[in-house]
């Protein structure tokens, strides 16, 4: 397990991280979210020892040293490979730096290229590949040595939905193999679809930390999806309804300031009769993100 304990990092007068504390358990996927400049990349750089910091970061209870590098797979935010190498040379070179012998890695390259649907040959020069395919090769470089700790900085950026699904599948497979995975993303749908845990940073402070379901539930079931013949204006007049969004046809999303008001609203809408849809849920991750990013909601 990766444990980040009270980590603070200051750049001049700017505190990029302020007492950041959270865990990344083995066999789980942790999503690290936050606005630009919240401290996500600084957190990753601290884990990788690129920066000096106050506090403690441990892997299985020990400070991270060069010996642990072989078990880490890291994908930086901006993509970059050595343009003049072939796909095979690039993968083998980076794997050898992870202490994986070429004779073990070489036979796996075709399989990984198929898994990520890379269009091109392993003998092709990196610079001859499209940007998307270069990104896939970089993902292969990150994962092929089967790391126990996987750090992915914005892995979905630039990927179309089909390729994003391929990446999700690879991340889920790594989780099944017991890897501790942490990734940052601005796409809350991707975070929501595969994450077990969620950490949100705001100006270097942890503002959310926990299992994804628990985090969402902690905001209460303040969202109500209904399909009804009632008009938008009538719905807005219901008590404890703060906002009404017309989704489509007779379907509406009602925001409640008190989740307990759901039962009264159900009684009023149905009047003891059939209703097509009545679903009370916690806010989506996207809404939680907007809420936490704008306010200091606890």
């Amino acid at each position: 397990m990766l444990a980040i304990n009270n980590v603070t990092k200051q750049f001049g007068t700017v505190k990029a991280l302020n007492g950041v504390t959270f865990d990344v358990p083995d066999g789980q996927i942790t999503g690290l979210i936050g606005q630009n400049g919240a401290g996500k990349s600084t957190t990753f750089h601290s884990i990788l020892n690129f920066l000096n910091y106050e506090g403690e970061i441990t892997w299985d209870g020990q400070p991270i040293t060069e010996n642990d590098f072989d078990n880490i797979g890291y994908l930086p935010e901006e993509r970059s490979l050595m343009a003049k190498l072939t796909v095979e040379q690039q993968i083998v070179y980076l794997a050898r730096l992870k202490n994986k012998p070429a004779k073990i890695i070489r036979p796996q390259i075709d399989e990984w290229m198929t898994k990520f649907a890379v269009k091109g040959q392993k003998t092709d020069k990196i610079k001859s590949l499209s940007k998307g395919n270069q990104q896939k090769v970089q993902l292969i470089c990150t994962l092929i040595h089967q790391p126990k700790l996987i750090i992915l900085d914005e892995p979905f950026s630039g990927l179309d939905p089909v390729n994003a699904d391929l990446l999700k599948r690879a991340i889920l497979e790594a989780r099944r193999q017991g890897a501790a995975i942490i990734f940052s993303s601005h796409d809350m749908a991707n975070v929501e679809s595969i994450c077990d845990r969620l950490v949100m940073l705001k100006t270097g402070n942890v503002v959310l930390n926990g299992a994804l379901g628990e985090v969402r539930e902690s905001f209460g079931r303040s969202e109500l999806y209904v399909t009804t013949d009632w008009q938008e204006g009538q719905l807005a007049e219901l008590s404890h309804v703060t906002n009404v969004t017309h989704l489509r046809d007779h379907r509406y999303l009602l925001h409640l300031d008190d989740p307990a008001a759901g039962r009264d609203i159900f009684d009023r809408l149905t009047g003891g009769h059939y209703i097509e849809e009545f679903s009370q849920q916690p806010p989506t991750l996207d809404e939680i993100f907007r809420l936490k990013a704008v306010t200091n909601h606890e």
Partner: protein
Amino acid sequence: MNKTWIVALETYLRQVKSWSFVMLVVSPFLLLAVSLGVGYFSGSSNTNSQRIAVISDQPQLRAAFIKDNQADVSRDVTTVAAAKKRVANDKLAGYLKLSADSRRVTGRYYSQNSISSSMETSVKGFLNKTQQTLNLQNAKLKTTQLKALSQQPVFKQHIHKTSGSSDIAKIASFWILVFVIYMVLLTYSSITAQEIASEKGTKIMEIIFSSTKASKYFIGKITGVMMVILTQILIYLVGGAAFYLGLNQIDTFRKLFDQYRYLIQPVIGNLLNVNLLYLFLGVIIYTIVSAFSGALVAKAEDAPKAAQPAIYLGMTAFFLTFPFQSNPTGLIVKVLSYIPFFSSYFMPLRVIYHQASPLEISLSLLILILTIGLLAWYISRIYEGLILQTDDSSFWKRLKRGLTYQN
């Protein structure tokens, strides 16, 4: 395999497989081959037009002249008609008609131009010698009289050599060496600085530093470049030797080498001694500084500028040698021959002129090697801090941040 070696091997293989390296290594040989080829062919095409034919009714007389002037005579021309035709076609410089009766030897030279001074000397020399022999025969002298007349005066040169060919060899050795150091240094400084600067602009370094320590990577990189330099020097040595031995098989070049052996041998001797080590170490120390300045650029687009500090330093040392090319005993030369960055130019100057003792050379080498070691160690420690800065702050800010980096 050790990660430093993995980086070194990757750097080495990538560079030696590149076209720029192949061109770098092959171009001097090509240049040499082309210039020697041009010289050879123009030389051989000129030879016939500079030769003369010798025509004579007396075969012994003709044979005697040819024996003394083999290189200057076209033997296959034996008639006046053939000689005239060749002269008209500019295949011969002219022809010499030789005749002799019992009292006089006669030589008549026919040409479109006047005879060359060297040929004139040869012809006159031959005619004088033959006439002398004829005169002695006609005088019917006794053996003792003949002996007395054949007495020659004595002329001997007694030269105390303080200059001459040995000085030319030293000056030639010096210029060849400083130019080779300067060119190799310029090339590798530029390659190294640009490579590191272009890496800095990318995130590949973050991936690499998540696999190995920056210090190991830096040392691996420098080791790889060292191996490339060694390969180039080895190719030059082996190729140069092969070129020399190959050309020795060709008559024209063998004569040329024989003619200039007094110059060639000491020059080769001056290049293949401790000076070769100075060349190698000099390039290494400048390469390390280039790597450092390459790591200081703000972004990949600045890569071409990255080598400038090392190149300017190299140029300063290079031009500083000019006033001292024949003054190896000056105080400034002595001082600079111990100072790294300058010693690679100045100590070889002293070595060429035999003005440095083995102790002085050892001390200078020790200082140079220690400086290389210390520089490599220090830069490897701050390398991560230098290379991971990608902001567009000023050069001095980046330098300060790099120098104060601790991890």
